[in-house]
């Protein structure tokens, strides 16, 4: 046994309202720079839908992830190492920027400077790549809310085999949102595809990162990732990807997409897993067994033997303790309601999803079933083959029983709570029929329906005690005040200590801080603010109006 820790995420898709707040805050934090206009480390897709980039789930086209060779050994789907080196001058599996959406902006000045007139001025769309006028044909979220779905959605790869039975008619359609970030896989094919060795998985927390100094722009990571969550910065010529907001995670804070999630559907916590078993699990012969195989890799942090091994492997005690309270471990392993996205890519992804019951229940309702009655909903879940098969194509490589079990359990939680609220009689056998006890269903209810901040995000701080000692030694060699904008360089220096230390725990201080903006005004820094404390200088102070003369 070789225990390692992994920061992982679970998203409860029932709660996603498709507001894109996660995408916006992520973009503001990480990718609002030239070269990354088209890049969304976090994006929200409408499903059924074609995805971002277009049809990224079609691995017969893009060759992302792993496959098994004839002898059953794990192999990159895009081919071996020699083939990669030979095709380095042209990567046949790289999506074009048109598949993501050619980024554009508008010449807003036209509107700003328009002369007074009766007609409203309009703006031209301008390509961010060339600076020329362009015609808009596709964008990163072109099919939001099933827009244009009759044309595009049938080419959703997850609908393979269901085409003849799926109707894109308003009354019969089912849809849900799928927020996606980097999966920070246990067996990352992007890392394996990088010829320069610039991509790596951090051994402490499992976050997958790109070393920008070692990246040489060979772009095989982009095509190697089956989720297409590594991007090519067209200005710098380097790969970039979701960092799981590691500066926040190291400080024990949730990622910015989780922090700002309106539906509060994201959970962050630790998994302990056995690194020795990863390759074996990823090489499971039957795709439909990969979900169970991945579960078998995880270690129970309450097991004394695991704890002893973790201590030997150098995992700090507070991390093991955090792993015991981990909401993601509870949802994925204890309750078995969270499922991995596309386990058939064999990367062992670590962002898991609770499949949505609502679209199924909606279709059940439209079909005339009363969805307050659990028996009826169960019957409907069994009847409604298309949504179930679709979800199975997303989360279990097509194994419908697993999805059905999860949905039944979620329906049972609803039934139990409904009976409790309305004082109805409840079938004693209901919890057992979904493979749970009444207490477990209650626990699940607390986790997914109540889900307080402290319960959703259990992120232990990184241990950086040694780094501090080393930095102290380093700091003697230069004056920290001489940095850009520091007093030694003629500036005013940092306005407050807080702005340099994002490490406030959310409950003890407001976080945030202030900074001096270009216009000379002191402004409040929303980044790092927990939303509870004061926010001085958030709005401009209203200057006192001198009273007019009475005359």
């Amino acid at each position, binding site marked *: 046994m070789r225990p390692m820790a992994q920061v992982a995420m679970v998203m409860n898709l029932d709660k996603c309202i498709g507001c894109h707040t996660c995408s916006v805050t992520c973009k503001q934090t990480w990718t609002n720079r030239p070269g990354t206009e088209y890049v969304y480390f976090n994006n929200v897709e409408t499903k059924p839908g074609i995805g971002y980039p277009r049809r990224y789930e079609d691995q017969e086209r893009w060759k992302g992830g792993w496959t098994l060779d004839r002898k059953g050994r794990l192999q990159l789907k895009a081919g071996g190492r020699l083939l990669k080196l030979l095709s*380095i001058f042209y990567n046949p599996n790289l999506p074009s920027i048109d598949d993501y959406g050619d980024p554009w902006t508008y010449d807003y000045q036209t509107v700003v400077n328009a002369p007074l007139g009766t007609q409203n001025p309009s703006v031209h769309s301008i390509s961010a790549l060339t600076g020329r006028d362009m015609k808009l044909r596709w964008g990163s979220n072109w099919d939001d809310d099933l827009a244009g779905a009759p044309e595009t959605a049938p080419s959703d790869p997850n609908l393979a085999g269901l085409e003849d039975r799926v109707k894109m008619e308003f009354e019969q359609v089912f849809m849900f949102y799928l927020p996606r970030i980097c999966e920070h896989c246990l067996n990352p094919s992007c890392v394996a595809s990088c010829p320069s060795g610039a991509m790596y998985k*951090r051994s402490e927390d499992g976050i997958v990162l790109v070393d920008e100094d070692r990246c040489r722009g060979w772009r095989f990571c982009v095509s190697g990732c089956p989720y297409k969550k590594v991007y090519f910065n067209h200005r710098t010529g380097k790969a970039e990807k979701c960092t799981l907001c590691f500066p926040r995670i190291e400080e024990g804070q949730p990622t910015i997409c989780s922090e700002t999630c309106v539906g509060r559907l994201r959970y962050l916590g630790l998994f302990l897993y056995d690194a020795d078993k990863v390759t074996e699990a990823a090489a499971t012969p039957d795709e439909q067994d990969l979900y169970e195989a991945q579960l078998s890799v995880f270690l129970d942090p309450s097991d004394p033997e695991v704890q002893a091994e973790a201590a030997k492997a150098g995992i700090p005690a507070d991390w093991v303790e955090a792993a015991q309270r981990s909401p993601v471990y509870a949802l994925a392993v204890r309750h078995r309601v969270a499922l991995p996205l596309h386990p058939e890519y064999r990367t062992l992804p670590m962002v898991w999803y609770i499949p949505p019951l609502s679209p199924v229940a909606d279709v059940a309702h439209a079909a005339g079933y009363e969805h307050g009655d659990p028996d009826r909903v169960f019957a409907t879940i069994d009847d409604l083959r298309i949504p179930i098969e679709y979800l199975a194509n997303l989360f279990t490589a097509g194994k419908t029983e697993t999805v059905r079990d999860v949905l039944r359990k979620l329906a049972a939680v609803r039934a139990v709570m409904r009976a409790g609220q309305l004082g109805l009689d409840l079938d004693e056998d209901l919890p057992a029929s979904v493979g749970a006890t009444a207490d477990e269903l209650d626990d699940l209810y607390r986790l997914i329906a109540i889900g307080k901040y402290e319960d959703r995000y259990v992120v232990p701080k990184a241990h950086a005690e040694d780094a501090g000692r080393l930095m102290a030694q380093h700091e003697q060699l230069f004056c920290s005040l001489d940095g850009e904008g520091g007093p030694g360089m003629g500036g005013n220096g940092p306005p407050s200590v807080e702005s340099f230390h994002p490490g406030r725990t959310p409950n003890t201080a407001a976080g945030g801080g202030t900074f001096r903006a270009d216009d000379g005004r002191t402004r409040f820094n929303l980044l790092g603010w927990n939303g509870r404390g004061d926010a001085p200088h958030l709005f401009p102070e209203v200057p006192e109006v001198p009273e007019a003369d009475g005359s």
Partner: protein
Amino acid sequence: MSSFELWWWVILPYAAMVVFVVGHIWRWRYDQFGWTSRSTQLQERRLLKWGAPLFHYSAFAAIAGHVIGILIPRSFTEWLGIPERAYTLFSGIAGSVAAIGVLIGAGILIFRRMGVPRVRATTSGVDYLALILLGVISLLGIYLTLGVQEFGSGYDYRTTVSVWFRSLFAGTPDYKAIGDAPVMYQVHATAAWMIFAVWPFSRLVHAWSYPLWYLWRPYVVYRDRRAGPPPEPGTGGRRWRKIGVPY
């Protein structure tokens, strides 16, 4: 020796060599972030599919041909027992194939870089400089291979250009040898020295990063987050820094 000869056949080659070596050390230490192939496949893939592999593989062949023709003395191939006719025949055919490959490949790539607005927008000044030098070298190389060696009168560069080139490395520059060569050979050689001087400051540095190491590396790379001692001035690590940048 005239000052003309001194400048073109002695000073320029040695200056180019120094700039090449020092420039690379400086770029490696100072600009790891800028050290990239700067691929534009994201923006345009249809032309690149044919142009890039054709150009690169033909350029490899051309470089290999130069190694054989310039670095290996005529006496060595004669000592091996390779008759002059066989050598000329081989170099003529292989050289012509490489030359035609470079011609078509570079033609597609230059058309792509100039004609496709998305690609053109990514092109920097030093890219144009490198492109022009490469164009001059390639066109002259093709002319010399096809026009002179293959279908022209032929010229034995191995007794002039090659002798001069090797003498530079021996420290006794034989400027007379190159002075006797036809002017097209002289321009070709001069442009080659100039591109060596431009090399470390252009995207051509990606040639040294061809990731052969990938063949032996374990697939999944792990790295520790734990901080090591930070690099300090005078204690190793990066000693070259942009002026004015705090440590």
